[in-house]
């Protein structure tokens, strides 16, 4: 049995589940937001029986002792029963839910894409840059600060600098932006929350490099032919996306990078500078790949399904 921890509205999860179905692999979607509201979890230890890990959800019944691999795709927040109304009760219920489920994850002897702890750490942009530097992968000059003076200094040194946020939330999504007079006029507001400033990396094109197990799928995103050259996500609909090869030394570096982060899956963003340098921007441990596959036909859905279906032998 394969479990995909996500939600019905996640097209990546549903597409890979279809592929698994086509391959004849038993697989099921597990939406954590159904817990504890609609799902019943039981973990039991009674000698001499083996441990019981039983999940009875609205859509599925899962015996976790029979699960060989799990895709940690888009874990949803737990949901309490609305019969609980006061904050203390709700918080308590959610904490208890979290404790039980976290324990379950730790107890399972199965293959993870990605291991939740590694995945969580790998989301940290500072840590991403730190590891890249350790491995000699070029990263742009960077300053993360909430000190307006240091921010001013950094942007004075670098002729072109960008600013960006750590998190992209539904409503507060901001594209990576060049620091213009408008931003500089607002630098006092830097003190309210740390901001990522970086030297602007000129681009021949952007790269989206999707790593799935041993397979690497590099794609070029021709961002410089779109309406917004700074951040290729902005006008991705009109960007030409095509498969591309990257030099073997860069491939080797990326493999080491994944290994160091302990990730099986990751979508890496890089930029090819005019001088031929491949500059690392960030890695998205839960990044999307369908929009790339649609253009490049690189078989990523299949690769992901295969990785889940054929986990490496436990070490």
């Amino acid at each position, binding site marked *: 049995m394969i479990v995909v921890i996500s939600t019905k509205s996640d097209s990546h999860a549903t597409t890979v589940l279809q592929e698994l179905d086509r391959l004849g692999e038993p697989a099921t979607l597990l939406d954590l937001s159904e817990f504890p509201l609609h799902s019943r979890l039981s973990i039991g230890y009674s000698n001499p029986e083996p441990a019981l890990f039983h999940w009875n959800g609205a859509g599925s019944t899962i015996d976790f002792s029979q699960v060989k691999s799990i895709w940690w795709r888009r874990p949803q*927040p737990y949901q309490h029963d609305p019969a609980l109304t006061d904050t203390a009760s709700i918080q308590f219920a959610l904490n208890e839910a*979290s404790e039980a489920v976290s324990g379950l994850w730790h107890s399972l002897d199965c293959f993870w894409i990605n291991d939740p702890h590694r995945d*969580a750490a790998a989301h940290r942009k500072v840590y991403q840059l730190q590891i890249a530097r350790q491995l000699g992968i070029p990263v742009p000059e960077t300053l993360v600060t909430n000190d307006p003076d240091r921010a001013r200094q950094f942007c004075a040194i670098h002729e072109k600098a960008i600013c960006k946020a750590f998190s*992209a939330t539904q409503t507060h999504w901001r594209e990576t932006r060049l620091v213009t007079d408008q931003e500089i006029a607002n630098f006092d507001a830097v003190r309210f929350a740390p901001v990522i400033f970086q030297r602007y990396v000129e681009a021949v094109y952007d790269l989206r490099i999707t790593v799935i197990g041993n397979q690497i799928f590099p794609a070029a995103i021709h961002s410089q032919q779109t309406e917004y050259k700074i951040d290729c*996500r902005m006008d991705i609909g009109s960007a030409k996306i095509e498969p591309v090869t990257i030099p073997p030394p860069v491939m080797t570096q990326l493999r080491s990078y994944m290994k160091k982060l302990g990730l099986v899956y990751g979508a890496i963003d890089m930029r090819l500078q005019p001088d031929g340098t491949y500059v690392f921007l960030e890695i*998205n441990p839960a990044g999307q790949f369908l929009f790339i596959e649609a253009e490049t036909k690189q078989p990523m859905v299949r690769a992901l399904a295969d990785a889940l279906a054929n986990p490496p032998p436990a070490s």
Partner: protein
Amino acid sequence: MADETPRRICGTQNAHMRLLATDPEYVAARGRIENHALEFARTSPAGRSGITLIPVVVHVVYNTPAQNISDAQINSQIDVLNQDFRKANADLASLPAVFAPLAADARIEFKLADKDPSNNPTTGITRTQTATASFSDDDKVKSAATGGHAAWNRDKFLNVWVCPLSGGLLGYAQFPGGPAATDGVVINCTAFGTNGIAAAPFNLGRTATHEVGHFLNLRHIWGDDGTGCNGSDFVGDTPNQAGPNYGAPAFPHVTCGNGPHGDLFMNYMDYVDDRAMFMFTAGQVTRMQACLDGPRATLGTPKPNPTLKFIDDPGPSLKFRDDVTLKFADDATLKFRDDITFKFSDDATLKFRDDGGGKLKVVDDPIATLAGGDPIGPGDPFGPVVNPGVNIGGGRGAQPFILSTPHHSMAWGRSFPEAFQAQVSQYEQQIAQAEQLLAQCQQAEQAGALTDADRQQANQIYEEYQRIVGEYQRMIHGQ
């Protein structure tokens, strides 16, 4: 997944979003209409007295002979409208007693038109065979060129198209303020009336009641904010409610801390089955009457023989009026300040928390990694996670650097139309809220009830309002 029983699907919000994105005149008109509705609710002017009688034209647009519904089916629908908009429907008896004071008579009646736009005698029914197998919420049914039938003069008639609709769509309406050629409501022929080809669970004529509610400017009762608790239907006496209710829920259904009585799911503007909806509230009636006083002022005539019994039904509306007045008259300064704080902080911060299902742009971070509250430390991958919901629409102070300067490009709108429209709709709500607040500020100022601190707050709201309007216009006009 096994087949589920059909659920109500209404296309009005879709049509609304489409017009917002394509029709600047509509955007401007919506602003005016909301201001008028607010003013109307606050000042309780006379408006139309008695009962308004609205002439209806039913355009039957059919593909198969069965879809050419009978006159009897059409008449059964008119009957339902006349009961529902007069609080004369028998099933009102099922209303839980605690909600009884809310139910109100909308004082509107309907009749099939007896004169056409050229003043010739008519049955009030047009019948058109079409090659189109089924329609959607794209207005094609409203023009002969696209397989439908043109609207009659919307200043005089309520246009009702009855046709096959695809994708489980039961109907949709155009809010007031839209183009004349597409004004009216569209109802699926199998969800129209109570006999003929009307099919359960939508065979009690309530789809038309719901859509005519929209046509008269009512919003969905849960506020069209997904399942969040901060969308508003701009009606004061409807309980705050998370998302739509389906089927026939058991009372009470508590969401958004609206206990003990819970959602007013038996309201015509929820998504429950026909048999489970049976009332408008006084606040909704005020809003519909505001519509007849404003954008639809030319529609309908006073009913010749009003039954006095219903004209004087002051209970609920009086209550509503008191609520509104109270805010300013009794405790002006204090209430005023509460309002600003409460409305702005809550609406702006919380409204967005529950938005949508992660279709935003290329957002690679799963929401689940964003934060965790005490005592589960941030970054705990297993913790219950909450979108931090940073206050973008604060209006009361500073903003972090990243949020304090606008987008540098709106190019993403083309690539991510759904997210784009969701954002447009959010801005629209924020703008409407800010306009309400600013109008209140103005009134309080005239009443001499503003302190310097209040004025300062008002100015901040105005600045924030201008910023949002600026972003909004950039989005609408593309840049």
